């Protein structure tokens, strides 16, 4: 029987949750890197025992950990992230130029075609690449230098490159997203990039046709149909059917279209999940009810999924990297909260149960489906 391994990053360390395909009984390992902020842990799809963890504290900065045995043991790899050339400036909160400064790594995306290659999304926004399992990092500087970088501005959480999606049918096509710059795409392996934000409308940007400046929170795609993208923007849930060239809103009947994560069912490309959050000023679910919303129509028509989730007095948040899906026949959906719960639904969202209830605030959730 297949097993699942859930990789959880939290404000005070990483945890690994494992179960068989029933997803009822769980083993919990951790905390790994106790006391450190772990924004993200992710495994290689080619070598599932190869894991990367981003480990950070304001006191000591960024370090990177790698495991080659599925998280049983870890060893530091390089934390040398240097911008290519003279990095110049981006726009600060007040609109003035501000020097690019490396702060931390938010997200890893291991290659789909080479087990030693991994991408890292950084703050201040940049894409880094390692071709030797994290021993050396080089900036994919075509992104930062493509022309709009001086107009990128941090969101409330910093100017972070938080989403990296590799087209499974074309390794030269990569989508990334930055808060608060927007979404970008390369079709030549990172040499050149273009903003793909047409159709996004953001209240705080006076220009309705602004090329950059949008606070994209998360993008997701289904591997069978990589030209269809779903986006949770700061406000608005969006969809593109042409690899990001054009976007249209699919918020439909959601109670609020603010939120952070978005993900797609493993076997149903039109089934999408979001977690609506009341507003950008109140980062908790509406009415104190924790509800995942599912659309089986690729957006617009959404249903609330509540069975097993707290429906009163719940004021947690679900962060952008804290939702994942497994690949079992009955697709499992997972998400973690800032209250330290990690929930699983082994039946595509119909019912939920907590795997753990009392971890530190959860920053990220990834899941590996193992044979």
């Amino acid at each position, binding site marked *: 029987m297949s097993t699942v391994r859930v990789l959880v990053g939290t404000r005070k360390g990483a945890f690994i949750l494992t179960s068989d395909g029933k997803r009822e009984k769980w083993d919990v390992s951790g905390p790994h*890197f106790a006391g450190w902020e772990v924004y993200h842990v992710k495994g290689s799809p080619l070598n599932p025992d190869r894991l990367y963890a981003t480990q950070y504290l*304001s*006191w*000591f*900065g960024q*370090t990177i950990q790698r495991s080659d045995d599925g998280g049983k043991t870890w060893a530091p790899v390089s934390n040398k992230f240097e911008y290519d050339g003279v990095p110049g400036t981006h726009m600060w909160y007040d609109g003035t130029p501000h020097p690019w400064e490396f702060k931390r790594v938010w997200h890893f995306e291991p290659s789909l075609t080479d087990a030693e290659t991994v991408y890292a999304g950084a703050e201040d926004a940049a894409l880094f690449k390692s071709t030797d399992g994290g021993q050396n990092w080089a900036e994919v500087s075509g992104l930062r230098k493509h022309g709009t970088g001086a107009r990128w501005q941090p969101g409330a959480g910093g100017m972070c490159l938080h989403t990296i999606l590799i087209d499974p049918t074309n390794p030269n096509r990569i989508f990334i997203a930055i808060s608060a710059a927007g979404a970008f795409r390369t079709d030549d392996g990172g040499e050149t990039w273009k903003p793909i934000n047409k159709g996004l409308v953001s209240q705080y940007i006076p220009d309705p046709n602004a090329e950059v400046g949008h606070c994209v929170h998360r993008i997701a795609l289904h591997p069978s149909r990589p030209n269809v993208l779903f986006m949770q923007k700061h406000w608005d849930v969006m969809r593109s059917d042409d690899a990001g060239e054009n976007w249209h809103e699919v918020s439909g009947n959601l109670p609020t279209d603010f939120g952070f994560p978005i993900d797609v069912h493993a076997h149903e490309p039109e089934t999408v999940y979001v977690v609506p959050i009341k507003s950008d000023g109140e980062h908790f679910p509406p009415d104190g009810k924790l509800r995942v919303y599912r659309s089986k129509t690729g957006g617009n028509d959404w249903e609330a999924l509540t069975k097993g989730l707290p429906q009163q007095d719940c004021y947690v948040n679900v962060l952008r990297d804290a939702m994942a899906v497994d690949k079992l026949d009955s697709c499992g959906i997972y998400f973690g909260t800032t209250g330290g719960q990690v929930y699983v639904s082994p039946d595509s969202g119909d019912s939920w149960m907590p795997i753990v209830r009392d971890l530190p605030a959860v920053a990220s959730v990834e899941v590996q489906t193992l044979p």
Partner: protein
Amino acid sequence: MIRVCLPMHLRSLAQVGTEVQLEVPPPVTQITLLDALEAAYPMLCGTIRDRQTKKRRAFLRFFACQEDISFESPDAPLPDAVIAGDEPFLVVGAIAGG
């Protein structure tokens, strides 16, 4: 041998105990001590001082012989008691935040 005490998070990162001991060729200064520390424990590169500028990270302080020596010149010799191994060189994280 020079004795160096690291804060808890860096001890776990470097997988060492409360104190590490280093051979530091003279002159023994903040710079040469930290060079020796990073050579012995490369995973500490960038965690105590910036990789490029070599400036101490903002939330860290250096203490020795009951004194805060963070603002001494990085090229200045460390106290004799540290060089003799009678007193440790302390890397201390700011006691703030969560």
